């Protein structure tokens, strides 16, 4: 797949673009670049970020938490090639609030809602509950997608230990709620603090007694009450989880995997790909960010560790002439050549480390692209525009 096709498919044909990848590879920056590239093609675009670096957040106008989309000013967008019809909105997700929203929505009535929100177990586990944060993010995408306010929603997924937590989390949560012991624990007798161990089979009864002995009186009752209240939400939650999943894996979405050029980052990207394939995720391509390139492109030249002394002398003399006065000509010439040699090694290393990933993606007929390492970090719209150009090209390159 070439870049124009990749850009067309990701930016113009779908409603949702999901940026996945490990932490520290500049995923947020690429998500912002993707969103700007779409806006430059005249689409009404929202980028939903999770945890942007402060200055990038400021550049996108989402420095403060809001949980509501904010539009970037028209002048700023025009300066970066966004036409009249294009819009760029940004939003930073407030995880805790999103999960509370979820409880508000699915709890059976205000009494059940308050019971959950006030439960000591909920207060502590709502951020720890496996994958709930990821789930909340996806839930928000669904909600905004339903509103029809945007042509394209770009999602910057939370950095996750497990590649696809945001897809798998709802299922794990439901599995947990469906498990036998949870079903036992939500027996009303527990919540009331009366331990109906008699109701259970002998083995189970014994296990529960032991658990109670270790965990302390009252703990199981708290857990039970929490689970009982949560159980009431399960049906609404289950339906919604299914819809979110269908949307993300369906024909209206595309995924972009963002990676870095280091060996570790490429290894993690490979693992990510395995998982994405197992889920039949609609992956459009891979973007490797911060790749070092030889000036002017192409392969770096062979640079001898001990270059011809005449060449070194020529470089030294030119530097000395330019500097005037006392100047360590040979030291400077050697340092310049040594620097170029060092940089060439870095360029070769990035190329070597990413080769297997490139071949794998090429063989799948998907897009493999690189974004060069810029001299400074991306922290303003100009930087985001550079990313957009490198990753997606110019709007007119897209087929009509």
């Amino acid at each position, binding site marked *: 797949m070439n870049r124009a096709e990749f850009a067309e498919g990701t930016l113009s044909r779908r409603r949702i673009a999901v940026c996945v990848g490990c932490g520290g590879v500049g995923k947020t920056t690429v998500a912002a670049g993707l969103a700007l590239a779409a806006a430059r093609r005249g689409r009404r675009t929202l980028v939903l970020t999770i945890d942007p670096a402060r200055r990038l957040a400021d550049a996108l106008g989402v420095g403060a938490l809001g949980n509501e989309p904010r539009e970037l000013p028209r002048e700023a967008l025009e300066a970066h090639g966004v036409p009249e019809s294009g819009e760029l909105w940004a939003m930073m997700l407030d995880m805790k609030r999103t999960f509370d929203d979820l409880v508000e929505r699915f709890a059976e009535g205000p009494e059940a809602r308050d019971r959950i929100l006030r439960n000591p*177990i909920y207060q502590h586990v709502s951020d720890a509950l496996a994958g709930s944060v990821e789930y909340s993010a996806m839930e928000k995408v669904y909600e905004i997608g339903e509103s029809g306010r945007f042509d394209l929603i770009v999602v910057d997924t939370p950095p996750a230990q497990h590649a696809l937590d945001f897809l798998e989390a709802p299922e794990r949560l439901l599995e947990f709620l469906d498990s036998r012991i949870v079903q036992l624990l939500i027996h009303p007798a527990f919540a009331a603090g009366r331990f109906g161990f008699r109701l259970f089979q002998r083995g189970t009864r014994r296990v529960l007694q*032991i658990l109670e002995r270790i965990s302390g009186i009252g703990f199981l009752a708290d857990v039970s009450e929490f689970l009982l209240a949560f159980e009431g939400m399960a049906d609404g939650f289950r339906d919604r989880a299914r819809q979110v999943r269908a949307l993300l894996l369906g024909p209206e979405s595309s995924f972009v995997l963002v990676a870095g050029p280091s060996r570790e980052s490429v290894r993690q990207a490979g693992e990510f790909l395995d998982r994405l394939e197992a889920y039949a995720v609609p992956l459009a391509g891979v973007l490797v960010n911060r790749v*070092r390139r030889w000036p002017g492109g192409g392969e770096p030249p062979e640079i001898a560790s001990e270059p011809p002394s005449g*060449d070194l002398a020529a470089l030294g003399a030119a*530097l000395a002439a330019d500097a005037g006065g006392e100047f*360590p000509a040979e030291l400077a010439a050697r340092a310049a050549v040594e620097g*170029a040699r060092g940089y060439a090694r870095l360029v070769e290393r990035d190329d070597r480390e990413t080769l297997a990933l490139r071949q794998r993606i090429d063989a799948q007929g998907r897009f493999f692209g690189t974004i060069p390492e810029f001299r400074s970090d991306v922290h303003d719209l100009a930087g985001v525009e550079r990313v957009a150009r490198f990753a997606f090209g110019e709007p007119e390159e897209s087929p009509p």
Partner: protein
Amino acid sequence: MLASAWSSARIRRYSELSAARLSDFPGAAGVRPGSLREAGLALACDEPRPLLERRLVIVTGKGGTGKTTVVAALAVAAARAGRRVLVAETARDEQVSRLLAPGGPPAGHAGRTLRPGIQALRIDPFEALAEYLTLQIRARPLVDLVLGNRGFRQLMGASPGWRELITLGKIWHLEQIRGPDGPLYDLIVVDAPATGHGLTFLDVPRVVVSAVRAGPLRRHSAYVEAMLEDPERTLLLPVALAEELPARETAELVSRLRGALRIAVDRVVVNAVAQPPFPVGLEDLDERLAHLPPDLALGALPSVPELAECARHLRARYELNEAYAALIGRLTGLPSVRLPYLQEGADSPQAIESLAGPLLAPPRREAA
């Protein structure tokens, strides 16, 4: 090793405690969570003491920052100084053991000696749970009944937090072990999990203490919390890279350590710091190169624009690195220990040896 009379007394008391069974500990043995903080002892954490004076160093940092390298280097440095070191790994793949004793068998939950003076183990939450239950229930058949129960296994599979809690409990237990001449280990280095901010892991005992009303679970969590919050014994050692994201995350980590979770932290390890690319006096070599005529005949050398561009990249990377190292100092208010970027990679025993010395250097304030 621990100088103050207060702490020797404290150690003595712990050693008496450890002679007893875990389950026999009196509930309110003066290790009430927060009591140390109230006594003002947490203030001591602002004065950096030599790393090796602690008994427990918890190394934390996001994946890719070189946390494992720092754990291994600290173990080597401590062993060189004659300390008996235990490395406690929490990740399944035992990276520290592989670094320090390549090709050897895995240490596993039972542990093994990697080198003279350095032992390692990988804490397996299920094994640790079995040990804990055995101490609690005393009757092995009952333990097997619990662990073999399908519902119990399902519950454990889905419940958040218990792996962290039992792992920390195991570390607490290891810290309590005494030989005939005092503590079995002079220093325990923990390779903490690289999840989230690394703090979710350490926060679990506190959460349990505040969420559970009474009983052994709460009591034992309080012991663990007291160990973590004791600045005489425990130090958290954050590892960062001089880059935007790790810098911000380290700042957030440190600010959380000053909030609800009070674990002593007195320095940041800034890893893989780029060295100055050009000799002193030639810091602006890229600009000098850019001044030269682009078509200067240089024979076998790269062209002037290529040399200038390479130099510009190296200088920009170096200066950015310096700026972020300074930012880490400013945001955290902590001095730092810098470890150099190693061209050949930091994943060989030789590289670890070379980092052991610099790691023990007194931390320095970054220039603003």
